């Protein structure tokens, strides 16, 4: 009898454990009719998560029948986790999609097209042109951006003045001149915080785009108006040669391996005089104890010999998982985050270029370090906004390839000509489909 009970108990335990592995799903409806949305963010950092939680509390107060559970994976692995969640169709309703991930997420039908739900939405009128354009790519609305990242030049006002220059570099050739003069390796002081590590391709492409700005296709900033890639243009060769000179004559030798943290650290601890970065760095540099507020400022993006620059806008936003069974509630949440005070607070707290037209009048954006962004916005013919093909499914593959090859150039294992030929072949083949 005893052994029978033991056998039954063992089988019972086995069954319970086996069955516990089953089940899942994103949202859940509790007995009181409350819907729980699962929301997952990608570019996680503690301050940002705090802001987001505050906004979600506001949303829950305004919508007592909806609860939002925020999932915040570490940034390095977040996109892969989101990818797995979307692929499995479980555990997520609202998702942070980035311009570099939305392409593959959309192509694999993991994201929901919100076009029909947002038709006639009054919030469209309050969004900037950029925000609307990025929301409606290829006739589909997979996400609504929450802000934009854009390049500008952070510079040391005191060092530039001491070196005898009347102002910050306005062009890439100015940057070469000033970096070379300010470069003092023996004193551990350098000109430009060169990006040779992760995402090194982004700044290299910015130089090439500035040199080919007159011929660029604004709908695809990797293409010339004649249909060829920007990497095939003779101006691209000059751009890369000049860029390599900046590395050799005006940058730290170890910047071959510098990614975001080293670049920002190099500028904020006073080792380098120039830094090309997104506005989110403003908050970090303000906290620096090595350089005071009157020692640095922000200038517009550097121009090429054309006198123009292409602003490579980057963005991310909120979308909905195709497998979500709480789409109406998810739409409510996305509308809430994309307008009024929640949208402004999110962009301010995260140092993002705002998505709302009204924000430009806010002194926060029109004064101090943000003034350079207003200058760029007010001069659209000089600082041309063009769309990089960051949404294509192979964008991550491109980043890995281009970063690796650029490091080869910096370490002397490849010439700039070989690099441009390789990049041209890659994009010509990809764009041909």
């Amino acid at each position, binding site marked *: 009898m005893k052994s029978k009970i033991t*056998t039954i108990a*063992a089988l019972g335990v086995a069954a319970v454990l086996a069955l516990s592995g089953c089940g899942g799903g994103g949202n859940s409806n509790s007995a009181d009719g409350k819907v729980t949305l699962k929301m997952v963010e990608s570019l996680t950092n503690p301050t940002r998560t705090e802001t987001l939680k505050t906004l979600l509390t506001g949303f829950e107060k305004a919508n007592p029948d909806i609860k939002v559970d925020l999932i915040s994976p570490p940034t390095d692995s977040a996109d892969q986790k989101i990818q797995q969640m979307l692929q499995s169709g479980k555990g997520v309703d609202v998702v942070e999609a980035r311009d570099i991930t939305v392409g593959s997420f959309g*192509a694999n039908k993991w994201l929901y097209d919100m076009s029909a739900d947002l038709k006639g939405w009054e919030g469209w009128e309050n969004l900037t042109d950029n925000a609307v354009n990025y929301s409606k790519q290829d006739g589909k609305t997979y996400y609504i951006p929450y802000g934009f990242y854009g390049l500008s030049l952070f510079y040391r006002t005191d060092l530039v003045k001491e070196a005898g220059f009347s102002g910050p570099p306005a062009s890439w050739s100015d940057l070469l001149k000033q970096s070379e003069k300010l470069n003092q390796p023996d004193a551990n002081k350098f000109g430009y915080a060169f990006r040779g590590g992760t995402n090194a391709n982004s700044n290299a492409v910015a130089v090439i785009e500035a040199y080919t700005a007159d011929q660029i296709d604004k709908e695809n900033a990797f293409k010339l108006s004649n249909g060829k890639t920007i990497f095939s243009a003779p101006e691209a060769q000059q751009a890369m040669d000049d860029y390599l000179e900046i590395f050799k004559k005006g940058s730290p030798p170890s910047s071959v391996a510098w990614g975001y943290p080293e670049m920002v650290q190099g500028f904020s601890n006073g080792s380098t005089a120039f830094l090309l970065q997104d506005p989110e760095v403003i908050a970090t540099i303000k906290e620096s104890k090595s350089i005071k507020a009157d020692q640095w400022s922000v200038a517009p993006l550097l121009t090429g010999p054309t006198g123009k620059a292409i602003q490579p806008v980057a963005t991310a936003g909120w979308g909905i998982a195709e497998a979500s069974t709480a789409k109406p509630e998810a739409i409510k949440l996305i509308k809430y985050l994309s307008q009024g005070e929640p949208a402004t607070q999110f962009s301010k707290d995260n140092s993002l270029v705002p998505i709302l037209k009204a924000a430009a009048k806010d002194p926060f954006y029109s004064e101090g370090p943000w003034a350079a962004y207003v200058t760029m916005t007010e001069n659209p013919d000089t600082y041309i906004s063009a769309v990089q093909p960051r949404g294509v*499914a192979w964008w*991550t*593959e491109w980043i890995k390839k281009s970063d*690796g090859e650029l490091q080869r150039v910096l370490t002397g294992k490849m010439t700039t000509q070989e690099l441009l030929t390789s990049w041209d072949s890659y994009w010509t083949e990809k764009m041909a489909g």
Partner: protein
Amino acid sequence: MRGSKPAGAPPAPHTNYHRKKRFNARTALTLLAFMAPAAIFVGIFTYYPMISGSQMAFRNWNLNDLSDTSWVGWGNFIALFENPEFGTIVRNTVVWVVGSLVPQVVIGFALALFLKRKFKFRGAYQAFIFFPWAVSGFLIGMLFRWMFNAEFGVVNDLLMKVGIIDTPIPWLAEPGFAMTAIIVANIWYGVTFFAIMILAALQSVSDEMYEAAAIDGAGKIRTFFSITLPAISVTLGLTILLRIIWIFNFPDIIWAMTGGGPADQTHIITTYMIKITQEGDYGQASALGLIVVFTLMLFAAFYLMAVRPRKANR
């Protein structure tokens, strides 16, 4: 029936047989039932993903476009072998494993011998020395990345202050230096494991053997090679095997310090696998995963055959 048997009566000759038979039948079912949760768990969370991942290795499984996931046979394997970087990656893997392992064994052994001696605050010393093993590999990589930073890092600063170098070494910017830097970080991390394992093995060697050796007039070196080393050889052999497999499969430090750079020159097989996965090519990444599994299985089999105790020595 059992209760009705008269006290002191000899057991029936067939009783044990019946008990054994009944025991086998019921216990087999019970054992199976008790094993089932673990078996189901391992099956779902280990073997199913492994088999699922293995079949990806023979298919065109690219997350950038899942519309065509057809079978490609050995295509992914051929593409890997034809990759001009593959030779460098294999060479780096060997350098990474051997370069990390040998100093780890030597320093770990020395530390274990040191910690075996009784002295004041030995427990506190042990805790300090074992500390690195409790830290995440990725975090260690991040710390060493800053330590080896040419301009702001403590390593160059110390070397310059001591007068060993005049100009900063671009540790993470030159492939040769970068490989050295990541191996130094891994040695620091892994020494602890050997110290722990060898210390445990040393404590199991009986004092009588050392006393007998001392009576026979054996010196310290002779005692080490004739008593200590043979007594812990099995533990040492298995620890080395385990460590080789772990180091082979340990991309954390490299990924955090160099990301496989500069110019993809510090990739080992597992960091390269991460790179391919991030590019979305799960087919090639799975093929690389299978290569790793079979290489390590073959290595483990040969290694165990090589280090097993010889009958003649028993």
